[in-house]
């Protein structure tokens, strides 16, 4: 019996190892393809197609992006600013809301919780929201519109509420109250300190949303100097494809001095760079936070 199980185990481990390895490679493969293409000479891409290893090594893609760095840097600036402000403000508001909504002596907490939750069940839809933002609040081409809609989501508030409930015992709040601390002091001195892992997780969700947002720009921003980074990339890609197609269609080599393919890939790397760079440091907070959320959820 014992031998048979060990035998099973050996085979099982081997299969598990192979499946996990294949999935990992499949997840990594697209990244390698883009990195490789960004380092390949444009003509070589057009001639030989995309390859895993650059056929002719060249940095011309990156050089082209930074030949006119103003717009890229501007988009970088907009995205960095919205990410920092949005994440900070969103975290501040959501930790407060989460704290209030889990206070058992707060009489209307269920009513307000449901008021927030209800927005996930029913909504006016995209168009009325769009008209409210543009026609009535006149937020077209403002930084406000890039920050405001992403500040909070019901899901993150519920997550925050659960985190705080599990991290801060009721007795701690009670005794602080007896010592004469008011509700805001309790929040800022005790609750924030104790729920750091939760704050890190929610903060990462928020930051990721702001960094990867292209949708808000596509709806509300006409002024190219206010494009978020992802939307700027989106436009560059479409413009490059247009140039390439025009060149191919008319026979006139419009884009001959414009390395369209390698530039697109270089842009993608530049846009994703900060995430790839920060990922090893932040992903364990993500895993940790989600683990708490899943267990307590």
């Amino acid at each position: 019996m014992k031998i048979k199980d060990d035998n099973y185990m050996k085979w099982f481990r081997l299969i598990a190892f192979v499946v996990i390895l294949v999935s990992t490679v499949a997840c990594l493969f697209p990244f390698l393809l883009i990195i490789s293409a960004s380092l390949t000479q444009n003509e070589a891409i057009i001639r030989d197609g995309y390859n895993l290893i650059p056929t002719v090594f060249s940095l011309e893609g990156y050089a082209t992006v930074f030949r006119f760095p103003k717009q890229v840097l501007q988009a970088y600036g907009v995205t960095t600013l919205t990410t920092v402000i949005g994440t900070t403000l969103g975290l501040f508001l959501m930790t407060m809301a989460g704290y209030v909504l889990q206070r058992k002596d707060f009489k209307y907490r269920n009513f307000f919780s449901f008021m927030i939750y209800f927005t996930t069940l029913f909504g006016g839809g995209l168009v009325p929201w769009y008209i409210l933002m543009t026609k009535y609040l006149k937020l077209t081409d403002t930084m406000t519109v890039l920050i405001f809609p992403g500040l909070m989501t019901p899901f993150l508030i519920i997550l925050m509420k659960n985190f705080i409930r599990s991290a801060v015992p009721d007795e701690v709040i009670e005794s602080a109250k007896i010592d004469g601390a008011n509700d805001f002091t309790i929040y800022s001195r005790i609750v924030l300190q104790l729920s750091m892992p939760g704050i890190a997780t929610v903060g990462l969700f928020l930051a990721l949303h702001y960094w990867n947002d292209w949708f808000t720009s596509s709806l509300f921003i006409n002024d190219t100097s206010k494009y978020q980074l992802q939307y700027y990339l989106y436009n560059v890609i479409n413009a490059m494809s247009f140039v390439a197609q025009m060149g191919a269609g008319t026979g006139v080599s419009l884009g001959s001095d414009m390395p369209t393919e390698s530039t697109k890939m270089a842009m993608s790397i530049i846009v994703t760079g900060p995430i790839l760079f920060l990922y090893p440091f932040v992903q364990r907070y993500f895993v940790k936070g989600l683990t708490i959320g899943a267990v307590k959820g």
Partner: protein
Amino acid sequence: MQRKNGLWKELVTNRLLFLMLLPTLLFFIINSYTPMVGVYYAFTRFDFNTSLFNSQFVGLENFKFLWKSGVLVKLTLNTIGYNAVFILLGNVLAIALAILLSELKTQWFKKLTQSIMFLPYFVSFVILSVIVYNVFNYESGFLNTLLEKLGAEPVDVYNTPWIWIFLIIIFYLWKNLGYSMVIYLATITGISEEYYEAAKIDGANIFQRIWYITVPMLKTTFVMLLLFALGSIMKGQFDLFYQLVGNNGMLYNTTDILDTYVYRSLKVTFDIGMSTAAGLYQSLFGFVLIMTVNYIIKKINDEYALF
């Protein structure tokens, strides 16, 4: 009068708590509740220069058009169909991967592979569209380059609608499997070793241990995630569909969902009445669906109910 006094008293005693919650409430009132008034646009012919309630009332005309042109049925089927596959396949595969990963013993390998599989979740959908273009474009894509080397005919993926059903599902999984896997892995790590030890002593082999211990233990997480996902089955993965397909009309039949249709009607054709109608239909249909599902769950097992 009694009620009002209660509210007033509560406002005074917990004024700081109210004040701390106020910005959040204002946010949802402005961002979510005010637009609900605007669903009236669905019953009007929109004119940018007149205000909402002065617009010309047309009754159900917009809905009738959507219904008669057959768009609504197609969009509904696509939206629900894709989401159902996403939910089922996504969860089942995530569970399978989590179980396999949890059985491996080399710690650094586990950590490394888990990190890499979680990585696509962090990448924007614009980048995803670059990746898809990179692999599948006709002239120089990786796939056709490979096929050429093997002496096969190149495939024109961007003009072949049926392929996109699979591509969209594959890239959904590529982006989201790591995330759900981490959640399931957390649940598995939480299972006490004692169960497995006891089962081993009783002579259960690895497959029996997985089937009779791990899988049942994951059931709660699975049902919770499943029901949570069912709640948003009418809301598609807009970013995914729009970034992969864009405004490529060739592919609409197999890839258009309610969200992309509404977005396009707003951005491209600026048909406010029609797109509000489609959006309202989506909201209402989703609402009824959630209520029904929640009602049924409550009947079967109260613990799992959403609210």
